[in-house]
């Protein structure tokens, strides 16, 4: 075993940053195949695992980059002078993790030192872990079959956001935040551009060798207004779709064009009267409804939750396995898909972290719960013979497990417009953007706020109201849906860091939908 000192020494001699750049550099020969150097390292892990009695092994080498830049504009202490505070951060992480099955039990180990010797050592560590735990397993693991793939894949983007100068990024976000803060009545403004990339190599003992590169973008623009006299503070954000894309998505977000709207709407929000609570119809825009889909449908249809694997932390699910195929989870209008292939989806990737080719599958058809999100070691527990490709680990040092694919609500008929939905409401609320969100551990009882709320009276959108939240029970809420706008209004929003698992991991996931209407929902007055 390597000692601590030799670990540092080996690290210093390995020139591993150069290795990271070389391993994940541009393809020099066949652009459809993984880097030969990565494949050699994959062979080391597989060979070492087999030699030591593993019935299965996979290696993931990962390089992750997170760049975050932006501005906070807020007043100096005791004056009206605005401090313009910039921030620029660029974080990199590089390393590998090995997963093995020995005696029907998983073992995992990870290290930041990417060398052949360390991969062999860590593979043996993973085997030690598996052996130690095998005595306390309930039943041996079983993996559903998967084809062996040798492939290289890159997510779609036109302009690499990391190649855009920081100067251009700061200039854009500075101009947008300055525009939001232009009215002195706006207390503070915040704008940021986030860029994330994942370079991943996967090799398994079943013959797969897969290299993938994913780029995601996260723009953000926010304003706060304060009424000191009455002790009120209100928020307004520009809901920009986070997505798997390049710099072109930032250009299309029209941050500068939307800044004046945010400026005026935050002041309107500050002056808005409190909502009159009670049962009301709600019309929810995609910038808001994505989060309700995520929490109530996305998480409740995870198989690992339903089977009790997450009982200690994230929770279980009210959708127990006997409900699959027969439980009415919504009205006939509700058709929901799990989909890691959809354009610009945050969890879109060609292969999951089990090496399974990703797919699109129905979760809800005409209101009936049809399928769970699955991975290789759990699909057989509900009698399925293949995984739906929902395995993901958020780092080279994390254990892959079941994570949410993009889960989206199909649009309604072509002819249905958001105005059609509003015109059918006598007393209701239109909600844009996400706010406070909370749901119980079985995904029944939820409560959501929002970013902006407009009263609907007599079929017309009226002025803004404030302090709104709505509370419902998941099946009741989705059964109360009686209108979904057409495909022209369908948008995809999402979460960059959905949490689950122990040790906790994050996942980026998108949820597309069109504006939708729900009848007689319990609307609350907060504060």
């Amino acid at each position, binding site marked *: 075993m390597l000692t601590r000192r030799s670990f540092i020494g080996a690290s210093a001699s390995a020139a591993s940053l150069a290795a990271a750049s070389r391993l994940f550099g541009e393809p020099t020969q066949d652009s459809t195949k993984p880097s030969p150097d990565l494949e050699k390292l994959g062979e080391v892990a597989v060979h070492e695992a087999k030699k030591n009695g593993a019935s299965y092994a996979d290696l993931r080498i990962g390089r992750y980059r997170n760049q975050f830049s932006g501005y906070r504009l807020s007043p100096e202490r005791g004056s009206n002078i605005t401090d313009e505070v910039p921030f620029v951060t660029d974080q990199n992480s590089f390393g590998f993790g090995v997963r093995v099955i020995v005696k029907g*039990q998983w073992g995992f180990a990870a290290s930041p030192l990417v060398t052949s010797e360390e991969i062999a050592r860590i593979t043996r560590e993973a085997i030690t872990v598996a052996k130690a735990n095998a005595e306390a397993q309930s039943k041996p693991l079983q993996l559903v079959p998967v084809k062996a793939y040798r492939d290289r894949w890159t997510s779609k983007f036109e302009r690499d956001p990391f190649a855009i100068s920081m100067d251009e990024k700061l200039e854009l976000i500075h101009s947008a935040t300055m525009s939001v803060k232009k009215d002195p009545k706006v207390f503070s403004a915040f704008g940021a551009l986030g860029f994330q990339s994942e370079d991943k190599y996967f090799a398994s003992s079943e013959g797969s060798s897969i290299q993938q590169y994913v780029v995601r973008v996260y723009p953000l623009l926010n304003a706060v207004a304060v009424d000191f006299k009455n002790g009120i503070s209100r928020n307004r954000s520009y809901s920009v779709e986070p997505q798997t894309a390049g710099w072109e998505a930032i250009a299309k977000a029209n941050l500068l064009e939307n800044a004046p709207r945010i400026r005026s709407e935050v002041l309107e929000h500050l002056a808005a009267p409190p909502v009159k609570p009670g049962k009301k119809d709600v019309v929810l825009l995609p910038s808001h409804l994505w989060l309700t889909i995520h929490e109530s449908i996305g998480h409740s249809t995870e198989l690992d939750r339903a089977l009790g694997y997450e009982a200690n932390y994230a929770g279980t699910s009210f959708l127990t396995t006997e409900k699959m195929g027969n439980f009415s989870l919504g009205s006939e209008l509700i058709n929901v898909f799990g989909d890691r292939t959809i354009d610009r989806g945050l969890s879109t990737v060609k292969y999951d972290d089990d090496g399974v080719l990703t797919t699109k599958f129905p979760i809800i058809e005409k209101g009936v719960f049809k399928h769970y999100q699955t991975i290789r070691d759990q699909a057989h527990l509900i009698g399925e013979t293949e995984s739906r490709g929902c395995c993901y680990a958020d780092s080279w040092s994390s254990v892959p497990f079941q994570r949410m694919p993009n889960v989206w609500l199909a649009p309604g008929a072509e002819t249905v417009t958001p105005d059609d939905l509003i015109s059918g409401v006598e007393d209701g609320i239109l909600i844009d953007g996400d706010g406070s969100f909370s749901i119980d551990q079985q995904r029944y*009882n939820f409560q959501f706020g929002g970013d902006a709320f407009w009263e609907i009276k007599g079929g017309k959108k009226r002025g803004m109201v404030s302090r709104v939240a709505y509370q419902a029970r998941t099946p009741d809420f989705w059964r109360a849906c009686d209108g979904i706008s057409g495909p022209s209004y369908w948008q995809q929003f999402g979460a960059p860091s959905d949490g689950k698992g122990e040790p906790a991991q994050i996942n980026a996931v998108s949820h597309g939908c069109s504006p939708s209407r729900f009848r007689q929902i319990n609307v609350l007055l907060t504060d």
Partner: protein
Amino acid sequence: MLSEQEVKNIIDQVIGYSKLPECEVYVSWTEDDFIRFANNGITTSGYRVTQQISISSTTADKRSGNAAVSELTPEALKEGVKRAEDLAAISRPDPEDMPALPAQKYPKLNNFDSYTASARGDVMVPQVKAVLAGALENKLVAAGFIQRSANAVGVGNKAGLFGYHTYTDSSLTHTMRNPEGTSSGWATQSSVALKDLNGEEQVKVSIDKCLRGTKRKKLDAGKYTMIMEPAAVADLIGWLGFAFGARDAEQGQSFLSKPGDSGATFLGEKLFPEIITLRSDPFHPKLASTPWGPSLLPNEKTAWIEKGVVKNLYYDRFWASKAGKKPTTSPGNLVLEGQENSLADLIASVDRGLLVTRLWYIRVLQPKTWQLTGLTRDGVFLIEKGKVTDAVNNFRWNESPAEVLQRTTKLTQPMRVTNDETGSNMAPSLITTDFNLTSISDAV
């Protein structure tokens, strides 16, 4: 584990590569083992080493860039410095930048346990087996998580500051459910010493809660007297700590702001009962704290609420310089001081109320009032005439943690609790009145 000399060498290397006037380096190294279990068997587990070197570079005109790398090679460190300096060169001057701190005298903390530092997964397996044995014996189903970590952290800068600290930590948490899925119990332990964890003892708590909960009665939402167990209280004080920022309070955005635009706050005023004292105590031997806080100033014991009086607000270095105040430590490592009561004493003193095991999915409803929402989880029991009678359903609640403490009438002694979103704090059980349960949750 990275030694003090090894951390010093890394920091010296980074500073040696730096060309800008200011360079600050933060090194973190962790070795951890963990085991997850569910459905009465171990599911996944792992051993890993992770490390990060964060570099912050600043120009003479206060432009800063930040970069982080995970490799220790000279090439990687050099690249990290270059990236931070390139970003600084392009960035704009930061009007809130503070000059680099000179050398500091950091306190010595005693939260390193050598057994925990060298333990591996195999010594945690017996604790898991004890929980599983309890589950099987009672025909219940256990799921949980045990972990231990050894950590080395170091800080340094061009102005001569250097600090190094090692600490360990561990926890065992598990949920006990009946096979029908109609009842759930939970228990937790966390300590800097792995040997303090005791699966055999812990499982008695979760089994008791789960078996009591099999015949749940339906209870309506409303305002109730509540006895909150330490895990629930730890979440509430953790969220309360987030709201003690001086900047928000002085700029009218906090429950600690007085109405009007004068910048006046409730600092120094008695907002809570005499029995409430909430402090940060980085020296508490049960907490896995570090000698410095986010500002890199030495951590200090700091009272936020003392005998009901708002004693301090959190001033970072910048805001403190503007306010003419001394910067404070940040509101972490919280200890809510208790009284010499047992949980049984608390239960005996309640005529009608609820006993709550823990809270779940807490989020802010209104930042200004610090009104939160969340749910109860893994055991809610009715108390009638000083005795626990029936298990009841879960609830959603909308409440302010400040108001919960304002209505607190009695406490036990605190114990350490580690929660996922609020970290490790020392929290007692307490009685609070009129807790606002807004709706029933069908979840078990």
